[in-house]
């Protein structure tokens, strides 16, 4: 990674870490994970299941929320504070600025996910008294959540590169919701006919598919996740994110900043 890119990446990370909202969310997630054993007191024989569902869902959801709320301000905040002009007046290319912002936010999210994972496993250890080999499958679900963040960060950055923070948040959240129902959209496309089929199929591939990245219910029931699925999901998330980041770069390259 060149020095300009790494400088923007690290600065984005530092800025995000200094952000109070970020700390609040981490504390909230840790509280939620810690309270899961309390929730399970009111149910029978579900202690571990509730903890896993609450913990993994929190990691995924809060990661996405962080990605959206930090991501929407990545470009607009720099324009608002006029720091963007200082950056771009130096020998920094626009694509380096966007890519640096992306990697910086991803770094923040990866660190967040790591902290949340630690909290989750501590809660699991407290609940069970021991960590079993089957508990390692939870890491696959967390890894898939990180892939989800990869895509969500790219999407937020794309919207952030041309619209206001509020609209970027609305668009990103809407796409996240659509992405969670991507399987339904493709089932619909498969059953449709004629032009509707083509349109629905196009839309189904254009929106992110988060359905295949959600394996929380399966790992909660100790179900095996195929190696192939991990590999293909990784390839999908990387390629899709790359396509979206390139689109963001193309838009930002042509944006009039005067």
């Amino acid at each position, binding site marked *: 990674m060149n020095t300009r890119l790494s400088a923007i990446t690290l600065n984005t990370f530092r800025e995000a870490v200094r952000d109070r909202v970020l700390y609040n969310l981490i504390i909230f997630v840790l509280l939620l994970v810690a309270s899961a054993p309390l929730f399970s007191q009111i149910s029978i024989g579900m202690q571990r299941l509730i903890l896993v569902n609450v913990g993994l869902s929190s990691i995924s959801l809060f990661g996405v929320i962080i990605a959206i709320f930090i991501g929407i301000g990545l470009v607009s905040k720099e324009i608002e504070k006029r720091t963007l002009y200082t950056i771009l007046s130096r020998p920094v290319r626009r*694509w380096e600025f966007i890519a640096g912002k992306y990697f910086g936010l991803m770094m923040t999210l990866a660190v967040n996910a790591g902290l949340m994972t630690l909290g989750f496993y501590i809660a699991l250890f407290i609940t069970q008294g021991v960590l079993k080999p089957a508990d390692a499958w939870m890491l696959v679900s967390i890894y898939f959540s990180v892939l989800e963040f990869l895509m969500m960060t790219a999407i937020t950055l794309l919207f952030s590169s041309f619209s206001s923070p509020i609209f970027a948040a609305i668009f990103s959240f809407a796409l996240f919701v659509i992405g969670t*129902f991507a*399987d*339904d959209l493709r*089932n*619909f496309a498969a*059953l449709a006919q004629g032009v509707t089929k083509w349109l629905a199929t196009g839309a189904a*591939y254009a929106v992110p*598919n988060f*359905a*295949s990245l959600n394996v929380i*219910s*399966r790992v909660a*029931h100790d179900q095996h996740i*195929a190696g*192939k*699925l991990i590999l*293909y*999901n990784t*390839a*999908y998330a990387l*390629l*899709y994110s*790359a*396509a979206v980041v*390139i*689109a963001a*770069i*193309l838009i930002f*390259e042509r944006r009039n900043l005067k």
Partner: protein
Amino acid sequence: MKQTRKNIATAALLLVGCFAGSVFALRAVDESRGNEATLEEVLYLPSSKMLKRLSLGYSGLLADIYWTRAVQYFGSKHLQHSQRYDLLYPLLDIATDLDPHIIVAYEYGSVFLAQQPPEGAGEPDKAVALIQKGIRENPKYWRLYFNLGFVHYIDRNDPRAAQEAFEKGSEVPGALPWMKVMAARMAEHSKDPGTAAALWEGVLQTSSDHSVQNTAKLHLDSLKADLDIQELERRIQIYRERTGSLPADWAAMERTGLLHGIPLDPNRAPYKLLADGKVEVQDASKYPYLGEWLYNQERPY
């Protein structure tokens, strides 16, 4: 300037390449997921009460999604000629819990549930439970009583319960007068295939869905063919009593005056006369419910 254009073109090419790659990767993801699909995962959340809370007030939207999933599930199983439709009732139950006024789910869902496999789930009792739930939630919708009477009569072979359903339905303000007629027919001609035909005719006339209309037509054709075959075999017995042998062809029957012309099935194809005096249709695939009525008559309900 030239360099910038080149960079943009490269970036655009990369974008297209990455997006195309993501489509292929997603297809590979689908293949590796195999049969494990959304529908199987749906039931990890079998509680509609929990779903209703999670929907944050958008339970109507969620109900539509569940109803769509039920239709997709039924459609895909139907195409596979499946003998089992395990998730159909839970999906319908969740959809109708989320939105108790989703009438189509009761009307068509009960048809999907009641028919024998592979045409349906073969669970008429669950179909009855679904319609009764619909009636509880929508007491003014008289057509649900028709659906209830229909399932009781056709799929459960319980004319008394069917009569009760038609009678109750006829008391709902706005119900068509033929609900009373149907109740009377249940009482008088409970084992009459003509009554069954009248019920299917009712479905054909009242349904706006193409696939339901098609099913009703197949049932009507099969019933008509059943009645024709019964009548033809009765006449063959008369021929045998008169001549001491079975007819070699339809022409032999015509000569004795027992028939006027070659008998044709509802699809205008001539019936087949077998050597043992039995009668069959030319193309059985056009009559998937052939013999069902006779089978139903013998069921000890």
